[in-house]
């Protein structure tokens, strides 16, 4: 039995369906991300789990017991908010101690656990600081310590890193993952940052316009996107219109001057989707011309104009000479690196 279960959950605000038929089973200790652009319903779903919003349909169960009838104060979940929502009139230690006070933990044990929690997030010695006197990253850590000190059954993170600068965000991602692994706390992260979702999660729920587009491991969602939205949202991708040429045997999949043996049972026009880093420059393949080439340190980014429309190619900077702007090239890729969608695609 799954630990946290969302069973056909839906949320309606007047005529607007904000979350539609959301079903998910989270295992104990799992790290799941809700990923999607703003307004996709990911935060609304999180708020329903937290209890700040009531679902219009469906049920949310924690260890088999219905959560929707439980007051948010009694759910025992740890939440880190985007704005951190620290109590500004309390010191770091008082902030962390608040949840323990509400649970009537004896004073001595409380002090011990507060010290432990602040130490865990690397803030030992900051007990008496007020939030106003701390940096964004430090406030973030206090918020995390405050959520974790009550030993929550589920940790909910609402865009916790979006207010940090890029370098700090990366550090916090690594640290967050380590802390989560050590404690084994079941965690749900809401984010619009695909890199964050991919580097932190065991599984990603990709959402768009209130619907679940795909649920899978980071690799699955990246390599085998279930929809055009997922492939566009998770990293860059190239979509080429292709046709099936049945005049030869076996039938061939054709996109411009590129072709390969078509998978069995495929008929009609399809969309071929290939990640830019899986395309190589070869002697045969889709004819294209390099429009711009951008050096990005460890890799080159090429923007090309191909027979099938614009294409982007990423090549490792391996020291070998690369094509220059204006040069005519052939784009090639292995059939197993592409995914097919569209009319007649055998899903």
């Amino acid at each position, binding site marked *: 039995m799954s630990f946290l279960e969302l069973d056909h959950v839906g949320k309606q605000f007047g005529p607007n369906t904000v979350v539609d038929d959301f079903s998910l089973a989270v295992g104990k200790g799992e790290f799941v991300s809700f990923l999607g652009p703003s307004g996709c319903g990911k935060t609304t779903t999180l708020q329903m789990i*937290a*209890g*700040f919003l009531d679902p219009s349909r469906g049920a949310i169960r924690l260890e088999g017991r219905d959560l929707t009838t439980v007051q*948010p*104060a*009694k*759910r*025992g*979940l*740890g*939440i880190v*908010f*985007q*704005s951190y*929502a*620290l*109590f*500004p*009139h309390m010191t770091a230690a008082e902030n962390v101690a*608040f*949840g323990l006070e*509400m*649970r009537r933990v004896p004073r001595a044990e409380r002090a011990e656990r507060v010290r432990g929690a602040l130490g865990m997030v690397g803030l030992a010695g900051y007990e008496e600081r*007020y939030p*106003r*006197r701390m940096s964004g990253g430090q406030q973030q850590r206090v918020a995390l310590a*405050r959520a974790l000190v*009550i030993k929550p059954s589920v940790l909910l993170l609402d865009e916790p890193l979006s207010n940090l600068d890029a370098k700090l965000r990366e550090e916090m991602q690594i640290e967050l993952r380590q802390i989560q692994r050590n404690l084994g706390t079941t965690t749900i992260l809401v984010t619009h940052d695909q890199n964050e979702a991919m580097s932190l999660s065991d599984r990603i729920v990709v959402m768009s316009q209130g619907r679940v587009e795909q649920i899978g491991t980071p690799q699955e969602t990246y390599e085998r996107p279930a929809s055009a939205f997922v492939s566009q949202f998770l990293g860059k991708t190239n979509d080429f219109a292709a046709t099936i040429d049945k005049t030869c045997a076996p039938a061939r999949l054709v996109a411009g001057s590129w072709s390969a043996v078509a998978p069995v049972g495929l008929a009609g026009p399809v969309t071929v989707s290939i990640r830019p880093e899986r395309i190589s420059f070869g002697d045969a393949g889709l004819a294209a011309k390099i429009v711009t080439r951008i050096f990005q340190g460890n890799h080159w980014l090429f923007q090309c104009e191909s027979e099938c429309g614009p294409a982007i190619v990423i090549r490792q900077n391996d020291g070998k000479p690369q094509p220059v702007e204006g040069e005519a090239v052939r784009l090639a890729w292995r059939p197993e690196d592409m995914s097919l969608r569209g009319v007649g695609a055998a899903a």
Partner: protein
Amino acid sequence: MSAAIDTTPASPAPTADTRDARAPWALTAPALMLFVGVLVIPLAMTVMLSFHDWGQYKGIEPVFILKNWREVLTDSYFLEMFGRTFRIALYVTVLTALFGAPEAYILNRMKSPWRGIFLLVILGPLLISVVARTLGWALLFGGNSGLVNKALTSLGLISAPLPFMFTETGMVVALAHVLMPYMVLAVWAALQRLDPQIENAAVALGAGPFTVLRRIVLPQVMPGILSGAIIVFALAASAFATPAIIGGRRLKVAATLAYDEFLNTLNWPLGAAVAVLLLVALVLIVVGASRLVERRYAQVFG
């Protein structure tokens, strides 16, 4: 030649600098002159006046004596007046805080159309003259003919009319009503700065609604309540119209006392001493209170 080139760009610079330095003074001069003309000079003259002598038949004598100040500071009559003034101001402040802070909180939690309507209801009275608002209380409670007194007597709930006119209670109630919007506004401003997620965070950590109010919301709006309290206290202690209508000549406060000395007894120097003492006492209290508040909250909200 080279010397000329060197000096020419340097020479206009000082004049530009001096012009820049004078610009702020020039620009503020009109306002400054108005301020000096209508506030500083009359105030200085009032202070001067408080040291002059006065007699029933000789009028004001421009001499420097401490008679008025000695009288104001030692006579138990004046002591009683000032005691009453600050006692009323204190009660009014407490009353507006007790009612105004919850009022602002409820207002802040209201949904869109109602919030605007009730904000208008609360602030609307500011558009009506203080005299009109105070006379309203007088109409409701004034003696036997007051509307509320009449109703309560005919219902048999009270045998004699509730004492309201010429009582300190009446003054406190009427002043609290008149000054309530200032407290509501101050607390409302503090509530606007609150992050609504902070309340959610407290709830998620297991706090009940009452604990959230007491431990999370109240401490955060405390600076707002205190700044509202300073405004209300200052306005209540220096109020004139409401004490004049409710208290009349029988129950005087510092402001009505100064007025009486000026216009009825015609003892301007004594009236001036009362007015200056009220001003000095108020300034000391207000400055002291805001210093305390600032020091208390500098670390938390600075």
